[in-house]
């Protein structure tokens, strides 16, 4: 049933990287429980604008849970408390009248805050650029059915390939590690016959870049898996480790 609720929001405001930043409190009223969390922030921003104040900067694009552009920490949890849900897909029916909600940016050494809830996650792109691909140019591919892939393997590759690159796993991790993200990419490609050739080299390059970008190490805290909006499993981390050791082995023997 649709209801209207009133809420107190404590929102992180930070004017660029130099600013120390602080929480500010806003009261919002008459929020329909059919709204999404970001629509609730839109409503607040409209009010702030009309009051002559600066609206809260936050990222979003698809608002369907697929682009990975949105994301903040809500009451201590990246993307909020609902399982397997991005912030844009979190709906206000999961809150109660009178709730206080704290909203802050994803925090990690490798992500800097650009403004308010907006962060720079460019380091995730850097990791992919260092090897997260299959080296094939347009034009020379064989017929698609010439490379059979069992339905089972395709499904498992697809499970890993669903990562939206949002960075919630990093924000959730006490070490701010990007292992879940990296492992999803590595496993997806390593599972497929097309990607096997470069699998070990890929894993090595990506892990090295991850370290160089300032992401921490993985110490098996499993927070990442719990907060991942796409349900990426930590089985992928085991697969990554396997590829990584293979790579280490080969590079010693070269």
């Amino acid at each position, binding site marked *: 049933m649709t209801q209207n609720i009133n809420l107190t929001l404590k929102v992180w405001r930070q004017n660029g990287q130099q600013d120390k930043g602080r929480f500010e409190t806003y009261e919002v009223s008459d929020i329909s429980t059919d709204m999404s969390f970001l629509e609730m922030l839109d409503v607040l921003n409209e009010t702030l604008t009309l009051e002559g104040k600066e609206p809260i900067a936050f990222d979003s694009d698809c608002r369907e849970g697929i682009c990975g552009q949105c994301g903040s920490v809500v009451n201590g949890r990246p993307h909020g408390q609902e399982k397997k849900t991005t912030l844009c897909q979190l709906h206000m029916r999961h809150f109660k009248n009178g709730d206080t909600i704290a909203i802050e940016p994803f925090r990690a050494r490798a992500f800097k805050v650009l403004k308010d809830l907006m962060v720079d996650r460019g380091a995730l792109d850097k990791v992919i650029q260092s090897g997260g691909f299959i080296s094939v140019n347009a034009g020379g591919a064989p017929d698609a059915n010439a490379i059979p892939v069992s339905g089972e393997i395709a499904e498992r590759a697809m499970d890993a390939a669903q990562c939206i*690159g949002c960075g919630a796993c990093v924000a959730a991790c006490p070490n701010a590690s990007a292992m879940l993200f990296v492992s999803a990419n590595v496993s997806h490609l390593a599972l497929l016959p097309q990607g096997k050739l470069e699998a070990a080299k890929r894993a090595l390059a990506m892990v090295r870049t991850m370290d160089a970008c300032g992401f921490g190490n993985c110490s098996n805290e499993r927070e990442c898996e719990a907060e991942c909006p796409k349900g990426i499993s930590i089985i992928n981390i085991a697969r990554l480790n396997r590829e990584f050791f293979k790579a280490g082995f080969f590079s010693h023997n070269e």
Partner: protein
Amino acid sequence: MQLDGNIPSGPIQDKWDKHCFDLKLVNPANKRKYDIIVVGTGLAGGSAAATLAELGYNVKNFCIQDSPRRAHSIAAQGGINAAKNYQNDGDSIWRLFYDTVKGGDFRAREANVYRLAQISNNIIDQCVAQGVPFAREYGGQLANRSFGGAQVSRTFYARGQTGQQLLLGAYRSLCRQIGAGKVEMFPRRELLDVVLVQDQARGIVTRNLVTGEIEKYAADAVVLATGGYGNVFFLSTNAMNSNVTAAFRAYRKGAFFANPCFTQIHPTCIPVHGTYQSKLTLMSESLRNDGRVWVPKTPGDKRNPSEIPESDRDYYLERKYPSFGNLVPRDVASRNAKEQCDMGKGVGETGLAVYLDFADAIRRDGRDVIERKYGNLFEMYEKITGDNPYETPMMIYPAVHYTMGGLWVDYNLMTTVPGLFALGEANFSDHGANRLGASALMQGLADGYFIIPYTIGGYLAGNSLDKVSTDHPAFRESESKVKEMTDTLLSINGKRTVDDFHKELGHIMWEYCGMARNNEGLEKARGMIQELREEFWKNVRVPGLEKDVNQSLERAGRVADFLEFSELMIIDALNRQESCGGHFNEAYQTDENEARRDDENYSYVAAWESKGVGEEPVLHKEDLEFENVKLTQRSYK
């Protein structure tokens, strides 16, 4: 000026091969001497940037989002077509070509569509090689599903996330080239002007969305792959940042805009539920493979769907179109939903919805099978509405989804501005007046992987281009024009927010230039838009600073362009006194309420030339000639 599509001569099957042979080539060693700007990192832009870099060109690639992987293409759900005929069900290049021309209600260029169908097969090969995890049969072969407007099963898919997987494939190729130093990537940038030197496109002016800095970039050619303009309606299935700004500013610089009134309303979206709503969510057309569309037989029947017996239900698509049933093309399905709701048979709180029911499919195939096919869509539906579609039928209603109109391009995908190319949804090329499902992904990737790499070479090799730098007066002029607009927007300090204007514009467009149009309404809308635009420039409030992150300012610029562009859509709709595909003028319908074309008078592409702000645009016609497909009244009975 006589518009020339530069369509190669000869039989349609040979045109592209012949053209590739005739195009001048850039010597491999010389490619590195050329700089190419690609704006956009969706399927079209991402694939183009990666492929041009693989060939050896220096590429600068721009996008609005914080990463190229987030372009709006990522949201495409259902699938991508190709004429592989893996199902042995009678598909062929010729059939895909024919279906696309017919689906587009005979308003597309034959030669382009044929080429698209030819290339479709290479795309699937390329994507598989890149590691796109398409759905497979148990034996390891690729799986297919059916989409609207076709009687063969030719759609390849990756669960309900096909766009995501294809885009990530292109993104990985792009990343490889960024890593190799061949593509320089500029995320969080917005194109605000295209710069012409001696009438050729030689660069762009952008705003850095983090620092607010206005930046200038020079190149030998500029490729726009900036997506569609569905957000002119405010509510659409497009991503929040989708805009017309890049295409519209190119139009102001001399690129003709083709068929702007051809917009697609998708039949299966989650209905609107509140005034605060920021966007609409699509439920993929693939659902119509298994879902059955119905409404109660009696207007005003407010019973729960489970309480309405079979005998009181009207499966109106199956009844009216026995051979295509629930899989009629989008424009037909959308208009029919509207017609049912107009008759008072709509369901849900607002009465603006019809049912899409999976009960029969679940009974037939079991819940597991349905879950494997559509699980993520059902989940998304439940998150948004709070209803469980395994148990109760979905409620759906049409919503703005795709724009067939776009920058006019010739066979080489070049606009009327030499050196300025347009790819993907940003151009008008292949879908005529209505796009068939799973064909946009195909077109974006065809343009980027397999067409522009050839045709841009022909342009570069065929023109001697002097080096220009961003110190050229044309860049400075452009920069100051952009700054002036920013200053004005920030200084008005009126009483209404940007979104408030955008919503009002959206209402006008949906009401008068949406699913059904008539001359009187269009005339009225034109006046309303002019008034709204005038008020915008007096009364908009844009808070914040120029040299800072300023999302209100970003949106203000886009809405300012929508306010101009919407009028062009109306002008185009008024000019086209016929109905075809997504453009349905109520005065022109058959006895069975289908779109009635006027091939005698309107079998042309309407390409509009800007004469500047406040001046009437000038119409140029490119006549469409059909040598291979016979023009018929579309029928899906």
